[in-house]
């Protein structure tokens, strides 16, 4: 019963010519019906090739689909569901597919055997880069790329079920039916767009009616069961740990169609049943790759499912299954008959037999036996075992995961009846009732292995990579005799079909050459994906702007309205500077922001810095464990700077912590380290001190926080802080903190902290008021010419002040290097304390943070430059340290830098060299205190 609707024609274009197919066709079946013989050129030898299979095992008919200027290469014509307007092209030819100029490769074949590139293109040496490599690059690969962005979208999803049935042939269908009827949550997945598997391609009868009817009826009943999910056009491509499976569902082959083209599913299944069927393999003989030489099962598929009668067929078979094919001539190897040559470069013309006979034929149906599709059983280290009687690899039940069962042809049960028996058995094992066994054929395969015809002419084993039997024998002759070596030396099985039709034949040829059995020869391992998965499907929606989530600060809208240029800091978008009309570049803006803040008042959104709420009776004790200095002694209403070490003694992060009550601290981190520090604190809390009463929760997003800095900072804040709160210097000194209200009763917190070195505060409100607060501050700040400043100005000011930041806390520096050696409490242990005392990290000649300023005021400094003492050669052994932060200081009208210098503390005043080989910038600099502006800290304390 054919599954093509002859009342629904579909127009398509192949290689520039218009053809007609029908609804239900694949591109391959439509081309065959139209009499197209040559559909591509082989990879290496550029030999004309025709369609040889009917599904994913296809090796020759690799085409490009074109739409909208975009090209999708290397698609199997046998798996493309025909649609109206499909435009496809054949691949791998210079000129037309029928007149390929690169066919000269076929004539040069003696020089192009396996591994030829290891032995050629060596002389002259100069020719490699200029001639050989470009030629090889042009010749390599099959399809072409349009170099356009992929216009399609992809999606991802997650499915849960009791049983995942992989394969919708007779075994899979009956299993799904049994389990579905028993109320189990079942997913039934099949790569094809119609369920039924082999039943759709043979003329089997089930219960005295066409097997196609049985498949359709079963699918109809499955559709009525709410606990069953049918997934056609879905390839289960990978088996992962703990019952996780990867599936790729194809919605359409049309490029640029609306909606996701493919969906990548992660399936969580308690149990999986692999009913993936089997794939027929060919026999290798001279010129067996000619257009018209096809798998016998494919010829039957095209006849029974697609209604295409391929006449003048000779059948070559070593088993009974092949005999089901309609053929004018039968060549049975079991009767000592075989093919020794085939003529007809663009399509089979004659077939020469070993008994001297020459037959006229247009097609050769080849049946060398069937390979159970065991691939998924290997994804978790399973190794298939050889079955002598069936001459195929079977899944090894001993290495199968407990939650994976294999049934039907995938388990060597090649008949329909055999499939049903195994389906019932596994259904019972999984808690369902066995169905009444349908009446179906139970023919044995009766195979006598026959792998290849020996001879002088090339006999193809791997059609896609153009690997012949001779290549395999050559590999062995050259010492590459293990199956893993043969694979890589010849590229057998390494094409996009993963050797579905070539692996076993190749193994057999190798076994013979090495005089071993097939089990002794072994097999290479299969890894996911079973069929190709586009990288776009793995990306899903995470492309372009959506590659990672974007975090926005509470003032983002206001900043966008007022000229902010944003920078990405991890996932955050932070204002880098605020551009004003007339400013020529970022330096104009940044210099202005620094000068205005230091002379009047500037406001900066510092919400992104991590805020962690630390509460509990033992909160102070806990902080003592993670910080080098003491926090249990911090008074309520005060803040303190803290430095955190890693357990290996290296500085991890720093911040200020405020104490709001006896049991309540608010700890801050740098923006980048908010996540890692929280993770670290929970680790210390749960894994090291589970008996402490201390609790953590992130409040980074909860509180909008703004730095208000500059000589007029207090005056500005006094306009928003509610009058009952006294923020004069006497009542609210440097490092004080308090809860309060602003703007007539809005809850707020105020911290007197300064990163800039100016008189400064950080004001914090619940984020719902963040936008309103920043607008109010700027409105009230108009009388002071208040400005917003961004991360660049923030950076310039902290460098002018000599505050360490991410560049200095770079994962290699210690507390001592940062000039904070004395800050580490001697009275208590903390994370990192012991290892920080290691000899290599302490002592006189270790790095110490210093400031540097160019000797010639006009000279520019570059970050990353290394320090060399005057008179020393500029070589690595003379390395004295490196520059870690650089800024143009509008305050000092000079470049300034922070860096790490060996024994830096004792070298103030010395002139050294800052050498930058990358940007060719060598500058004389003077070592100075890192605190360039207001070193005594007087401005902070007014």
């Amino acid at each position: 019963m054919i599954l093509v609707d002859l009342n629904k024609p579909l127009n398509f274009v192949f290689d520039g010519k218009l053809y007609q197919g029908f609804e239900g066709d694949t591109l391959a079946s439509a081309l065959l019906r139209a009499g197209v013989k040559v559909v591509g050129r082989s990879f290496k030898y550029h030999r004309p090739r025709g369609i040889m299979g009917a599904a994913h095992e296809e090796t020759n008919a690799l085409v490009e689909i074109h739409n909208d200027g975009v090209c999708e290469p290397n698609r199997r014509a046998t798996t493309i569901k025909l649609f109206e307007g499909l435009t496809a092209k054949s691949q791998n030819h210079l000129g037309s597919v029928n007149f390929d100029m690169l066919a000269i490769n076929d004539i040069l074949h003696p020089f192009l055997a396996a591994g030829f590139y290891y032995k050629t293109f060596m002389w002259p040496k100069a020719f490699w880069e200029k001639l050989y490599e470009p030629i090889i690059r042009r010749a390599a690969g099959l399809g072409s790329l349009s170099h356009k962005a992929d216009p399609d979208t992809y999606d991802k999803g997650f499915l849960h079920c009791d049983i995942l049935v992989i394969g919708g042939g007779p075994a899979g269908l009956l299993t799904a039916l049994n389990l579905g009827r028993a109320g189990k949550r079942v997913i039934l997945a099949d790569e094809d767009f119609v369920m039924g598997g082999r039943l759709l391609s043979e003329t089997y009868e089930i219960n005295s009616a066409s097997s196609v009817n049985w498949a359709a009826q079963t699918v109809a009943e499955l559709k009525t069961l709410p606990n069953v999910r049918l997934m056609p056009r879905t390839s289960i491509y990978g088996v992962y740990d703990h019952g996780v499976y990867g599936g790729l569902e194809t919605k359409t082959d049309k490029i640029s169609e609306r909606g996701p083209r493919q969906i990548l599913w992660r399936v969580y299944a308690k149990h999986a049943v692999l009913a993936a069927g089997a794939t027929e393999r060919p026999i290798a003989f001279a010129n067996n790759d000619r257009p018209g030489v096809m798998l016998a099962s494919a010829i039957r598929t095209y006849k029974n499912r697609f209604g295409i009668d391929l006449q003048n067929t000779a059948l070559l078979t070593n088993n009974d299954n092949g005999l089901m094919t309609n053929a004018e001539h039968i060549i049975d190897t079991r009767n000592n008959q075989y093919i020794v040559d085939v003529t007809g470069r663009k399509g089979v013309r004659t077939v020469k037999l070993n008994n001297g006979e020459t037959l006229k034929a247009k097609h050769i149906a080849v049946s060398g036996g069937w390979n159970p599709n065991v691939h998924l059983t290997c994804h978790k280290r399973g190794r298939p075992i050889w079955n002598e009687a069936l001459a195929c690899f079977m899944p090894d039940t001993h290495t199968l995961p407990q939650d994976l069962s294999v049934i039907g042809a995938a388990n060597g049960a090649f008949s329909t009846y055999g499939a049903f028996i195994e389906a019932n058995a596994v259904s019972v094992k999984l808690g369902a009732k066995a169905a009444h066994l349908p009446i179906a054929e139970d023919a044995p395969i009766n195979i006598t292995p026959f792998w290849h015809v020996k001879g002088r002419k090339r006999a193809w084993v791997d059609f896609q990579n153009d690997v012949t039997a001779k290549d395999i024998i050559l590999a062995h002759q050259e010492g590459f005799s293990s199956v893993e070596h043969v694979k890589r030396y010849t590229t057998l099985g390494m094409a996009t079909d993963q050797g579905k039709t070539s692996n076993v034949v190749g193994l057999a040829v190798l076994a013979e050459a090495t005089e071993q059995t097939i089990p002794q020869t072994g097999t290479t391992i299969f890894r996911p994906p079973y069929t190709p998965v586009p990288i776009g499907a793995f990306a899903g929606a995470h492309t372009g702007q959506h590659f990672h989530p974007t975090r926005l600060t509470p003032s983002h809208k206001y900043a966008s309205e007022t000229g902010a240029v944003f920078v990405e800091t991890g996932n955050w978008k932070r204002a880098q500077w605020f551009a004003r009309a007339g400013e020529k570049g970022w330096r104009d803006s940044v210099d202005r922001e620094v000068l205005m803040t230091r002379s009047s008042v500037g406001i900066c959104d510092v919400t992104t810095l991590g805020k962690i709420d630390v509460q509990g009776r033992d909160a102070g004790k806990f902080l003592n464990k993670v910080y080098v200095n003491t926090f249990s002694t911090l008074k309520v209403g005060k803040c303190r700077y803290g430095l955190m070490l890693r357990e290996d003694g290296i500085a991890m992060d720093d911040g200020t912590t405020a104490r709001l009550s006896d049991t309540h601290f608010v700890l801050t981190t740098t923006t980048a380290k908010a996540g890692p520090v929280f993770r670290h604190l929970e680790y210390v809390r749960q894994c090291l001190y589970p008996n402490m009463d201390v609790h953590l929760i992130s409040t980074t997003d909860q509180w909008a926080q703004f730095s208000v800095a500059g000589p007029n900072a207090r005056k500005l804040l006094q306009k928003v802080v509610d009058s009952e709160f006294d923020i004069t210097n006497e009542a609210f000194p440097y490092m004080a903190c308090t809860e309060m209200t602003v703007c007539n009763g809005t809850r707020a917190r105020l911290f007197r902290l300064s990163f800039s070195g100016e008189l400064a505060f950080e004001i914090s409100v619940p984020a719902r008021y963040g936008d309103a607060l920043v607008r109010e501050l700027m409105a009230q700040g108009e009388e002071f010419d208040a400005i917003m400043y961004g991360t660049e100005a923030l950076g310039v000011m902290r460098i002018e002040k000599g505050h360490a930041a991410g560049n200095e806390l770079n994962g290699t520096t210690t507390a001592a290097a940062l000039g904070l050696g004395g800050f580490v409490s001697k009275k208590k242990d903390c994370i990192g304390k012991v290892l920080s005392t290691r000899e290599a990290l302490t002592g006189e000649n270790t790095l110490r943070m210093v400031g540097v300023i160019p000797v010639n005021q006009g000279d520019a400094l570059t970050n990353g430059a290394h320090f060399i003492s005057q008179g020393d050669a500029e070589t690595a052994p003379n390395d004295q340290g490196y520059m870690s932060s650089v800024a143009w200081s509008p305050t000092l009208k000079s470049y300034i830098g922070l860096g790490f210098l060996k024994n830096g503390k004792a070298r103030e005043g010395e002139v050294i060299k800052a050498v930058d080989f990358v940007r060719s910038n060598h500058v004389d600099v003077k070592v100075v205190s890192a605190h360039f502006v207001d070193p005594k800290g007087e401005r902070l304390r007014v």
Partner: protein
Amino acid sequence: MIINHPTLGPRDSAEFTYLGDAALLRRPNPKSETALDDFYSYQYLRDNPAGEHRELWYHEQGDRSWLVVTRNTVTHDITKVEFARDVKQAMIEKAIIKRAKS
């Protein structure tokens, strides 16, 4: 990979971050005379077995609990999942009993 959280049930490993060998739970005594050597071993030396491995995972995108997962590094089978603080608690109690006896 799936981690069967003790109270939340099975969760995809994507919700977790991995730290390393659960030997990290045995933080050495910083006051000991051999503290420097002890901490060096603690920080850098690992058994790295091919087989059963007890390791620390953090449920970052879940309940932020630290877990001790017993996982076979060869087969990837997970046989046990415990709260790290329970494991640490048991260690502390054992040490107290040991000290009391000596």
